[in-house]
């Protein structure tokens, strides 16, 4: 156990790097200036996305998972926000140094995004056809007619019945699930390399969620799009992601292949999250439900983060060391790293 310190590196799993990396964040810092002071919403976050893979980013509200995603598209309102440091590399090029015009060419074309609430991301006064064909014309230089044809094709791809009729309809004519399909059609219409999905099914009912997730997995296979799946739902992660990044209070605390994250989590926060979710496949079979295990306390305010490990005040294993210094990365195995001083000692079962 003593030599575990020697194994600590700041390296993010070379072996997985063999596949082609399309997007990577390197020590990204996105800060906000608020009345209460500086908020480090995203602080030294690094993760990468390989071609055609799904990377899950999981964490609770305020952990910075969405802010990091918005930073990738440079959609952070400035001020009060500011990308204070780090790099975002898309196919090896740092997005942060692009001019706004180059950025516009990238958004929606190479990297596109879908959001939690499709109603607020669709323009209520434009028809579905107008909205989908707009980006096709813009990015692919299609004529109005060709763009509409392409839009109809995309609606067919996302399995919207009667696509030609839907093209003439307005967002309010569609159900929540249909709107999310339209968003996906729009996002994929220019065949982006990367699709950022920010809680894509959170606002949907469970039977509709199942439809949308199935569709996303199917389209990923078909089109080879890499997906950054941002969610708080561990079930969604387990069903879609190949690798997972866990965020807490603005930082990544654990990164692992999905089987390892669920099978051998090493960060006490990850363990706590996994244990606190009631499991449909377990609870009903127990005669009397066990108490759910809780993570004590609440997420710290980003204005007053603790001195050492941000999770220490809630961590059952924390000691003096955790309260004094932020833990270094520990590489457990290729592709699995943890920011915890005691990642080798604490073994949880989820």
């Amino acid at each position, binding site marked *: 156990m003593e030599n575990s310190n020697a194994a600590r590196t700041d390296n993010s799993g070379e072996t997985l790097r063999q596949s082609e990396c399309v997007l990577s964040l390197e020590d990204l810092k996105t800060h906000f200036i608020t009345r209460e002071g500086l908020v480090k919403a995203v602080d030294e976050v690094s993760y990468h996305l390989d071609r055609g893979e799904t990377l899950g980013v999981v964490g609770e509200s305020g952990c910075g998972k969405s802010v990091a995603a918005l930073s990738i598209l440079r959609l952070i309102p400035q001020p009060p926000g500011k990308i204070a440091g780090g790099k975002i590399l898309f196919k090896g090029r740092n997005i942060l140094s692009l001019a706004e015009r180059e950025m516009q060419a990238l958004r929606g074309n190479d990297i596109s995004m879908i959001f939690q609430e499709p109603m607020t991301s669709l323009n209520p006064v434009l028809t579905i056809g107008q909205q989908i064909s707009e980006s096709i014309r813009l990015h692919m230089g299609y004529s109005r007619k060709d763009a509409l044809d392409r839009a109809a094709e995309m609606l067919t791809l996302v399995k919207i019945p009667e696509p030609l009729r839907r093209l003439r309809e307005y967002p309010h004519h569609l159900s929540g699930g249909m709107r999310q399909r339209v968003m996906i059609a729009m996002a994929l219409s220019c065949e982006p390399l990367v699709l950022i999905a920010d809680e894509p099914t959170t606002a949907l009912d469970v039977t509709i969620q*199942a439809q949308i997730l199935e569709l996303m997995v199917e389209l990923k296979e078909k089109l080879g799009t890499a997906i950054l799946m941002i969610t708080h739902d561990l*079930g969604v992660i387990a069903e879609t992601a190949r690798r997972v990044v866990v965020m807490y209070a603005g930082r990544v605390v654990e990164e692992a292949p999905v089987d390892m994250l669920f*099978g051998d989590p090493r960060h006490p926060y990850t363990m*706590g999250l*996994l244990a606190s979710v009631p*499991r449909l496949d377990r*609870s*009903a*079979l127990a005669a009397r439900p066990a108490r*759910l295990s809780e993570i004590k306390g609440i997420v710290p305010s980003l204005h007053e983060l603790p001195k050492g490990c941000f999770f220490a005040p809630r961590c059952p294993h924390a000691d003096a060391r955790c309260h004094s210094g932020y833990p270094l990365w520990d590489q457990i195995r290729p592709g699995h790293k943890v920011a915890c001083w005691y990642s080798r000692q604490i073994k949880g079962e989820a």
Partner: protein
Amino acid sequence: MSQHAPQEPQSQASGGTAEESARPLLEVTDLVKSFPLQKGLFSRRETLVKAVDGISLYIQPGETLGLVGESGCGKSTAGKSILRLIEPTSGSIRFEGSEITGLSRTEMRRYRQRMQIIFQDPYSSLNPRMTAEAIVGEPFVINGTSRGRERQQRVASLFERVGLRPDTMGKYPHEFSGGQRQRIGIARALASMPGLIICDEPVSALDVSIQAQVINLLMDLQAEYRMSYLFIAHDLAVVEHISDRIAVMYLGRIVELTDKRTLFTNPLHPYTEALLSAVPIPDPAAGRERRIILRGDVPSPIDPPPGCHFSTRCPEATGVCRVETPVLTERFGGHQVACHLR
């Protein structure tokens, strides 16, 4: 701990004993709530939307009945109608043996204390201009049960019981986190010593780690005070965890009702099956060949399909399903299903 208890539980208000547990605390029969809907500007004809279309259920003292369904199925309307926060259109609601549907506002007040509700959104359900102490203590003011220092002490003990620090009593709702606000809502509901709490999506707005805290608190309080819960939620895993029996709603009707173990291991209604199989399981190792993906969306309650409401999405629907409404009937061991085919 017991000196912090608000008061003795009163689930046997009418001097009942253990044998009385056979009599349900709440008995709802053929509850209907329809809302008028003006169709078009010039149309004289009023259309009725049946948000709740004749549901019947009962809850025993100390029991939790889960009510699940997707958005728009009428589960929240059902919960509010049972408390008469929304006036039901027809049907009978018996609480502790007495019919409450015809009661006047004044007569109703007596029952209001015994039937409480906790809402989903602890942000909008607490008055932002009242301190937490005033919010939790309000039932004592309304019912005139205690005043001054005594009231303050009772609020403080409620605070402790739900896991809030009594020295934060003077704060306003916005100064608390989401989970803490939900605790304030629970403390307030607890203040009037209810026999029944309707929990309307109480943890849906909370983060995963906080969700577990609130669920545990609700279960502990139930064990301590022997309250009954009608637990309304869309999250099947949460409902499964907390409930004794579960009713599944689809477009205003209960399609299946049974104890949770049976519902999970032997669901009879095709909708229940699909619903259970749609829940993502947080375990990549869990095999999932059995997923049933329903096609299409939930039809609009304004214009529900004839016959079985689920027939438009049911993978097994036949001719009779599209014409005749299946009645909720008991199969065995209290397992109720509304399906022609099962």
